[in-house]
């Protein structure tokens, strides 16, 4: 998957959790939880959705690496390449 595809996938999964969210507003450095008003439950559901979709089980200790859109894209790119 390219970075663009990963980024689109993350935003798509967020749309499932926050249907009213506008993906266009997210920049790479923004905290997803702030931009899309995700609480801990929403974020956990995002992790679950990522696991369902691309079979990557992100350990809890790594959650903080996925708080930004850029960070999440990079993390998943690395995970997929392994």
């Amino acid at each position: 998957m390219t970075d663009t595809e990963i980024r689109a996938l993350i935003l798509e999964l967020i749309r499932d959790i926050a249907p009213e969210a506008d993906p266009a507003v997210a920049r790479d450095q923004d905290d997803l939880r702030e931009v899309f008003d995700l609480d801990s439950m929403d974020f956990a559901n995002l992790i679950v959705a990522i696991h369902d979709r691309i079979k990557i089980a992100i350990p809890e200790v790594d959650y903080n690496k996925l708080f930004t859109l850029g960070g999440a894209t990079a993390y998943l790119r690395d995970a997929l390449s392994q």
Partner: protein
Amino acid sequence: MPALGADMEAGTLVEWLVKPGDRVKSGDVIVVVETQKGAIEVEIFQDGVLSNILVPVGERVPVGTVLAQIAGAPGAAPPRAEAVAVAAKPAAPPLVEAPPPRPAVAPPGQRIKVTPAARRRAAALNLGLATILKGTGVEGSIRLADVEAAASGAKLPPPPAKRGLDLSEMRKAIAAAMSRSKREIPHYYLTETVDLQAAWSWIERFNAEKPPIERILPAVLFLKAAALALREQPQLNGAYENGAFAPSSDIHIGWAVSLRSGGLIAPAILDADKNIARPIDGGHARPRRTRQAREFTKLGTHVAHDHRHERR
């Protein structure tokens, strides 16, 4: 009731001077009537025996009303009963209202009194006025505060079939409930500092071995702790209803969840004391959206909220 003056339309019975069975003769004063000009004695113009009194003391009747009947007048008196009062009925119907037929009329006060403002608010809240048993307003009228109290006591209105929950109505109901709660329930606040390091470590160990779907959030521990505390302190689990505490045998914790599009629901985590992992399961994603919220509206026996501790 004779007309005791050209402008008299009605009179009130003050006193009967005879009783049924009494023999009366023309010229006897048999009854006293109160008019606008004062109390006036009324004579009878026939002989006979008073057989029946038709108008009791205290009643106000129009001119022309039969007050009593006489019977068995000796000699010339006709055998049938005849009116005592001989004054001609007024040509025009009397302007005073006719005396109400006593048994047939509904007693006053049967109608539910509702202030205009309360009626309008109830309509806006889609709240039936019949659900409000007692008004606290003037003359027992149902007023705004009663409607708001009833609205906060009622469950959320069922959503219209097509649009999902009506959030503006939900907002109103929440506002009414919260205002009432803040206004009527004595509040107290407890603050306690708890070292959560052990709990945190436990969660980390627990989650490390689990796939994402089975991991639990720190909030779950608070809910579990609350549930276990309620098991130890059952007097905190239940509700005050009709002036008495009604304890609940089950521990269902209502978890306040704000809906994304505004509004708030408190889905109950059933048997939370026995059921620890429930909040993380797939279904829990749903309450934050409105459309499926209905299935979560079962009432909790205890409500917890605001377990915000992420973004640390």
